[in-house]
């Protein structure tokens, strides 16, 4: 059973937090979804169905020719970055993995 603490952990892995009521509401939503999904799990033969990612079989997947094209200028790359230095995006020191 999922707890509020679990939810808080999931949220932190998604890089955010919210207030306690938020987690309570999430918990309620989880219960509804779980209840519905449990019903889906009981459908005959469901395990034998191929999970569907694409709305229909796409027969026309063309790969791109390997041609390099002009793209963004350095100014455009950095246009929306809040902190830059030496034509790069500046962030607090990242501890190397």
């Amino acid at each position: 059973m999922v707890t509020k603490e679990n939810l808080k952990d999931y949220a932190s892995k998604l890089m955010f937090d919210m207030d306690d009521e938020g987690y309570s509401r999430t918990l309620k939503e989880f219960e509804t979804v779980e209840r519905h999904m449990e019903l889906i799990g009981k459908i005959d033969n469901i395990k034998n169905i191929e999970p569907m990612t694409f709305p229909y079989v796409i027969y026309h997947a063309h790969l791109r020719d390997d041609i390099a094209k002009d793209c963004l200028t350095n100014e455009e790359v950095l246009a929306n970055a809040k902190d830059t230095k030496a034509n790069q995006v500046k962030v607090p020191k990242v501890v190397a993995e």
Partner: protein
Amino acid sequence: MYKVTIGLEVHCEVKTNSKNFSSAKNSYSEYPNENIDTVDIGLPGILPVANKEAFKKALMMALALNCKTPDIVMFDRKNYYYPDLPKGYQITQETKPVGVDGYIMVNVNGEDKKININNIHLEEDTASLDHFNDYSLIDYNRAGVPLLETVTEPCIHSIEEALAFLEALKGIFLYTGVSDARIDRGEMRVDVNISLSKDDTLGTRTEMKNINSFNSVKLAMETEIKRQTELLDKGEVIEQETRRFDEENMKTIRLRSKADAIDYKYYIEPNIPPIIISDDLIDEIKKEIPMLQFERIEKYMNEYMLSRHDSEILVKDKKVSDYFDETVKLGLTPKESSNFIMSVILGYLNKFDMTIDKFFFTPNMLYDLITMVNKGEISSKQSKEVFLKCCEENKEPKKIVKELGVTQITDDKTIRDIVIKRLDERPDLIEDHRKGKNTFNYFVGEVMKETKGKANPSLTASIIKEEMEKR
């Protein structure tokens, strides 16, 4: 002693004009953030568009590693947060990689060994981070560069085997032209998994990520094996964890344990439709794969009777090996060709930092040069001088030989006339010779003096001998 088991994951950048999922240039650049498309920086609204060439090269590598290729290839997302990953996910292959269940043969201390490949998959590289005192800078040039990850089975049982595998894999990348595998530019990076055990059951493994030179891989393996051995000797248990190799202090440091392992929440990338692999495509790619190092070594040793040592030197660089093959095809014996290449050409290339394909002296010229030696037109000592002169002046060997006038005197009468003249001058020395004194070399020297060294030495010797005996 413990049994060591090693599994390797090798990342290698693929050589293409453009990135894996965008049309930005795929090239090493001095200037940060210059080769970037909207896709590479993860701007809202972007969609990946897969690169045909990267895809073909991935398939080629899969085939070169004797992998099974699927009928349909798909891409997946690997989700995690890190500042070098602007989209917040990496496009990779989990469900249907380009190759599974392959192997390559490597030679470890003269013994052939099969290394099994679990899978090879095509993905994209991350941005590069530059670290300073209290900040880091992000350069997205590398983000989206096509990357091939080769994953071995845990079937490697010594450091030597691991290194032999890495060298062999690098060789395949170079031979197929899939990558330049420039380790100095970080184009090839290695993750090492190591476990120790007393028997045939696998021990608990630790992982070390992103090691970027083969020598560091060697040191890291040595260090980690030592650490695990010490722990096991003390009766302690090994924890499954990710560790970092600190080369400066020669130790490995714990990064995170298995419990903290990231769940990457893989799922199929919905923006790249499944790609159908036809038999025609596979056949077409197979035709483009050249004979690889391991097979060439076998051929040189078994068919050409060259030593392993010589064969390994010849195949180190595909271009050298191709050059050698060409000369053999033209008619040189493998031995004479390999001798000249190894004793003269490789040294010359090395000295001038040249590659054999960008070098004036073609296989045809080597054929002409050695044929002149074989016909006795020049001496083998002269052949080296002619070679150097050819390279210096960008002229063909025949032309150089003519110009220098280094052609040997092989005409019997010319030499005999000189010999007779000299013998007539010094009957005393002939007398000495009869008494057992060695005056033979004096006459050889005289002939050489007069012909400026051009007289064929063996012919000269036999004529002197004949004429002396006549008297």
